[in-house]
């Protein structure tokens, strides 16, 4: 039975792992930290898996655990982060897919998001995942109105960082 559960978990996680990578991309600054957070999220998901009843989609269930781990449980790496790490990490996008300007804009965008608070990062993540305000408010534990206010503030902050 345990083997079956293990197999089912690993298969689903392998399929939806991009969700965790996207969370790690926003909350970490280098490859080691990314791997650490990925591992911690995986452990937390595995622990919670026996209680997963399939009422929600596996991917939806993953959002909460991945975000909760990044915001509350993850102990950030104490190693000094080099400024290059932030800009270069995660931008191993195949050159034919993007032109230089777009890639440059993406780099700037990621470095700007990394300057936001943990909560603002979560809101931007949920926005990029195209979640509606009801889902955002449920995930964050705040009212829909406050989710809207906070989201607008986060976007405004990003704009300021990008256009000082």
């Amino acid at each position, binding site marked *: 039975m345990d083997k079956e559960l293990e197999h089912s978990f690993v298969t689903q996680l392998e399929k939806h792992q991009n969700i965790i990578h996207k969370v790690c991309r926003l909350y970490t600054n280098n490859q080691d930290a990314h791997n*650490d957070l990925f591992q911690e999220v995986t452990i937390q998901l*595995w622990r919670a898996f026996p209680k997963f009843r399939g009422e929600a989609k596996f991917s939806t269930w993953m959002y909460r655990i991945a975000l909760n781990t990044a915001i*509350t449980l993850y102990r950030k790496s104490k190693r000094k982060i080099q400024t290059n790490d932030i800009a270069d990490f995660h931008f191993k996008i195949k050159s034919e897919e993007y032109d230089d300007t777009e890639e440059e804009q993406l780099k700037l965008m990621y470095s700007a998001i990394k300057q936001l608070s943990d909560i603002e990062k979560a809101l931007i993540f949920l926005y990029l995942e195209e979640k509606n305000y009801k889902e955002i408010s449920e995930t964050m534990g705040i009212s829909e109105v406050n989710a809207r206010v906070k989201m607008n503030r986060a976007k405004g902050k990003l704009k300021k960082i990008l256009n000082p």
Partner: protein
Amino acid sequence: MEELDILKKSWNKDIHPKISAESIYKMILKKSSSAVKWIFIISMIELAIGLTSGILLLINPENELGLPSWLETTVTIAGILIPVIYSYKFFKNYQTINITSSVKGLLNNIIKTRKTVKQFVLINLTLIAIMIFYILCHTLTTVPVGIDNEVSLQLITLKDYFVLILVVLILTSIVIGICLFIYFLLYGILMRTLNKNYEELKQLDL
């Protein structure tokens, strides 16, 4: 926001190398390094120390510490009741910590659990402070065997008593201060991010 839309377009593209099923199998066998795990371990140590000190007081019926009987009874009862009540409260709160809660709900439960243990530690420290104060007073005012009580009492002036109380207070403060310093240092590191994020969400709901 134009820039965010550019990011949205590329957001779902797999840009990170895929992690194999084999690596995922290995990961789930590893131990968690989460902050909550450490908060739980330290809280358990605190509760264990509280319980041990309560038991030690119980199995030490002779009034060797020189405490007045009312204080000894209070300390003994508190030594049993407080750890029992707080252990129960701690485990009840700990059970409510659920990784699938909302971000605010999870932070709230962690902080609530932590507050329970914090209260327990502060009550214990207060009891320890009272005991240290009495023990020091008792030790410093007890006339050593062989010295005439009358003579020694004549030699002690009011000023001496003030100095004595001052010394006792300073020594008690130092002991409690060291305990608090270690305590806040330990939790300051673990709780900093949690508190910061919780405050941000709480302020938003005001």
